[in-house]
């Protein structure tokens, strides 16, 4: 049994006990980016690192020029009488600007647009996957509540699985979230998946990601939402496909047994929004 | 105190220190009105965004805004603006007394506007439109009350100008306060036109 499966099984046990189990994702070591557990996170990491290197070089060159000028021209000789108003002077400055602008900014723009269209904002492809998991998220002070449609695939019915501050998803499958908030603006932030999305009262926003490995990961709130903003933390459990199926079936059966038709407040879900 | 508009005096005025500082005041007024226009533009932007989010406007259970009185009010402000122009022309022609009358008329029309606006508010409030009753009354009351405050400031100033003009304080070459308040008054009128069109007509 692979370690991944063992971890998934352990996750299943924790979930099945249906306690507000204290799950412990591994702390990150070092100061780098958090561990990337997602399908597309590496695109963001690459763009960040390319930009860091590119800008680092620019900065070092500029800083070097500044330092060189400061040391070389420290009042030891008379200054040049040059207003820099000639066409040559202007072209020199504009050429320096153009190089930096097209290499760094151009790269950022092209890659960002490409990544967004093909991946991060490509909900069409994510929703086209037949195994895609849909979850509705209701943020409120100070917790995240998640709603799965259950076996019938329809939200706000008696088999909806509802969980607070814990989110279970299968590995290798797109997870599409629709977010709303009841009180103030929150922001769902999944550092290991390099995504976040505001949950705004009065409107529905959306987010999708795909986990590439089983395990437990943290998510939290990124938008200041009041005194206990820091406590809006939850744990995302990524499970192997069969483990997830079992968890989903068991949870849906529990939900159906515990369904109270009188409790209208519990049915805060909405009809899955088509964008 | 009345100054003749003899060409010699006019030429003297144009090169004087006072003429220059009056032009400076005029530039300042233009900057101020540009600045204030941004304030009203933001309020209109807020109104447009809130309205575009609402499923129906007005909501089914809230009263529709009247059209007759606001239309009358638009006319009142339009005539008031004409009276203001008339006052300026009279002053330029050296007829201070006539200018005072025109200024008083402009102020009075401003007063009529406020009274009619009060009637509109009272009617809607009685019909159940409270400021806290959702986005529709929020936008309506905020925009109209904020504008009415500007009308109030304007009509007080015009009244004061009318009194001063009657005492002969202004003439063909001494009309800076009247000129600046006229700009303000036309600005307030223009804002009302936009408000009438967007709140009541659209």
């Amino acid at each position, binding site marked *: 049994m692979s370690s991944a499966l063992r971890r998934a099984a352990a996750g299943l046990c924790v979930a099945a006990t249906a306690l507000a189990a204290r799950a412990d994702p591994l702390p990150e070591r070092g100061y780098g980016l958090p561990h990337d557990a997602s399908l597309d996170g590496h695109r*963001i990491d690459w763009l960040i690192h390319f930009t860091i290197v590119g800008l680092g070089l620019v900065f070092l060159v500029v800083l070097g020029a500044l330092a060189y000028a400061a040391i070389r021209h420290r009042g030891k000789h008379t200054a040049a009488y040059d207003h820099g108003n000639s066409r040559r002077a202007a072209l020199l400055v504009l050429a320096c600007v153009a190089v930096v602008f097209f290499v760094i900014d151009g790269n950022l723009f092209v890659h960002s647009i490409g990544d967004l269209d093909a991946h991060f904002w490509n909900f069409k492809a994510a929703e086209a996957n037949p195994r895609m998991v849909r979850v509705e998220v209701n943020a409120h002070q100070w917790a995240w509540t998640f709603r799965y449609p259950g076996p019938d695939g329809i939200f706000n019915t008696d088999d909806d699985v509802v969980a607070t501050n814990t989110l279970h998803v299968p590995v290798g499958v797109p997870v599409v979230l629709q977010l709303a908030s009841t009180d103030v603006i929150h922001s769902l932030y999944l550092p290991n998946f390099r995504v976040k999305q505001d949950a705004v009262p009065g409107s529905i926003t959306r987010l999708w990601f795909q986990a590439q490995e089983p395990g437990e990961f943290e998510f939290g709130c990124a938008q200041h939402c009041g005194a206990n903003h820091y406590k809006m*933390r939850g744990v995302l459990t990524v499970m192997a496909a069969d483990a997830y199926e079992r968890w989903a079936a068991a949870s849906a059966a529990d939900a159906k047994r515990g369904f109270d038709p009188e409790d209208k407040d519990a049915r805060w879900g909405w009809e899955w929004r088509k964008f | 105190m009345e100054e003749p508009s003899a060409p010699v005096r006019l030429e003297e005025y144009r090169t004087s220190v006072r003429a220059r500082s009056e032009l400076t005041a005029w530039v300042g007024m233009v900057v101020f009105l540009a600045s204030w226009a941004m304030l009203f533009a933001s309020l209109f932007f807020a109104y447009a965004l809130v309205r575009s989010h609402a499923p129906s406007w007005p909501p089914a259970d809230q009263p529709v805004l009247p059209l007759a009185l606001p239309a009358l009010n638009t006319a009142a402000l339009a005539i008031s603006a004409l009276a203001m122009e008339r006052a300026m022309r009279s002053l330029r022609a050296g007829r201070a007394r006539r200018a005072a009358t025109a200024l008083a008329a402009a102020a009075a029309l401003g007063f009529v506007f406020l009274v009619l606006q009060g009637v509109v508010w009272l009617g809607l409030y009685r019909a159940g439109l409270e400021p806290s009753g959702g986005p529709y009354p929020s936008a309506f009351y905020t925009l109209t009350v904020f504008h009415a405050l500007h009308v109030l400031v304007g009509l007080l100033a015009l009244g004061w100008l009318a009194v001063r003009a009657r005492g002969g304080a202004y003439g063909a070459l001494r009309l800076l306060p009247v000129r600046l308040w006229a700009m303000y008054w036309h600005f307030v009128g223009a804002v009302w036109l936009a408000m009438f069109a967007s709140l009541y007509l659209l």
Partner: protein
Amino acid sequence: MALPATHAPSAETQPIHPAPTSFVKKYVFSLDHKVIGIQFLWAGLIFLLVGGTLAMMIRWQWAFPYHPVPVLGSIFLRGSGGVIGPALYQNIFTMHGLIMIFFAVTPVLIGAFGNFLIPLQIGARDMAFPILNMLSFWFFALSQLIILASFMVALGPGGAGWTSYPPLSTNIGMPGIGQTMVVLALFTTGVSSTMGAINYVTTVIRLRAPGMTYMRLPLTIWGLWLTAILNALFIPVLGSAALLLFLDRTFGTQFFIAGAASVRGGGDPILFQHLFWIFGHPEVYILILPAWGIVGDILSFFARKPAYWYRGSVYAMCIITVLSALVYGHHMFITGMSPMLGKSFMLLTLLISAPAMVLVFNWIFTIWRGSIRFATPMLFALGTVFVFGLGGLTGLFLGDISLDLYLHDTMFVVGHFHFTMAAASFLGAMAGIYFWFPKMFGRSLSERLGKAHFWFSIVGLTLVFGGQLLAGYAGQQRRLFDPYQYTFIQGLRGLNRWTSYFAFTLFAGQFLFVWNFFKTVFARGHTAPQNPWEVTTLEWTRTSSPPPFHNFDVIPQVQRGPHEFANPKVKELLGRDYLGQAEDMPEATAPAAGAARA
């Protein structure tokens, strides 16, 4: 010609008024732009200390959460035994941001330098509207008073972040009078800024001395003037947001309320963000443009070399001013904004980096082949270039939507805007203070203390805000009361602690400035000569230190641009390397080659 031409008016248009004699008219309700400028300077510096103290509390919290704050805790937090709780924590970071931006940096850069320098550098006897100018200061003082009072009320002052996003900033999230007072203070300071802006814009248009064409204005004036234009146009937008928020809080209107607490569907919380950032992004440039102008001038003054491609710098600043009004959407990339809109905002945002780089390259080419004098103002100006470089470059990450998916609302954002708005504005302002102090107070600050202050500041600022960038890169969200609730942040405890130690050192280093400032103002320091830095602009070449009430005995006739250094002809005939803006060329027949083009 119906009206006088709009070119600079002739000298006799500005009569000399007698100086006031009573204490109240001279120092309290003064109409003198120089006194008002110094009033703004004091008001801003005092609040800089208040905002800095709050920052130290935040840093303490991130280093040692749940531990009593030493010294400050026993003074201000007696009720809780010196410990910061989550509710108090949100008040602290909210007020830190608000105070620093609106009540410390704004009055120093715009209130103090704008008032003091605009008439002096353009050759005017005062502002266009002195009474409006006085009112502007007293409205500002009123707003500061409201801010201070808000600390005393039940439930504390504002706690919704400096951006005051609703619905958190409405009664749903922040009940109590404190947040209402904060909104009122914002509105009041907005009125003050608008008054100041109208005055600055008009003064520069109308009161330039004869010969002072737009292309001969010092870069400082360009920075301040463009700032004033942005202020005049965009502060009212903030005013409208504050007004609507105030109405939502007190009259139950529904502009920004949505969700469970809304009536009939409610309004739109995102509307506030639109209004706030339509103002807020220009505000970023409002805070940095004056610093850019000051740096552009000081680099030339102390490199003893004309500013490189003056026109290029001016055009770049103008382009940035226009663009700054069109990019605000990049603050809202993850609110669920439409993709098309988001991409347009991203393109415009990246475009801004081009003119900004023009400025940076111009600065470097200015000192290149100069003859640099490393006086304190020059050190601060070079430091500004350094931190602005870091701040500007990190901004490129955040102007980008896909990177924002990860970096938005993390400490990376905090580090970025502190490098630009805090470090660059602060160092730029300090460059200005050290530079113009002799003109303001007639005495010179100690160079030795000034240089020590510089090294403390530049090293401290870089390490503190660099530490924030690193924490953000590792994913730490901003505004967390206890970041270590999150396991993935626990590894950053050491980083955050070290950042805090650097912050405490930085704060302590500022007392070098306080000591220098007080010692020189109150204990008799060296009396400053008229032109201690040997530079060219009107305030140094044409009037005493400090200038008399009417500034100039004779309104100067300006001959050339502000950066006439190293002209060999001047060197040959006058034996010095600079020529004042209103100074005659020694030989009337000598062609002033540089000046003609400048």
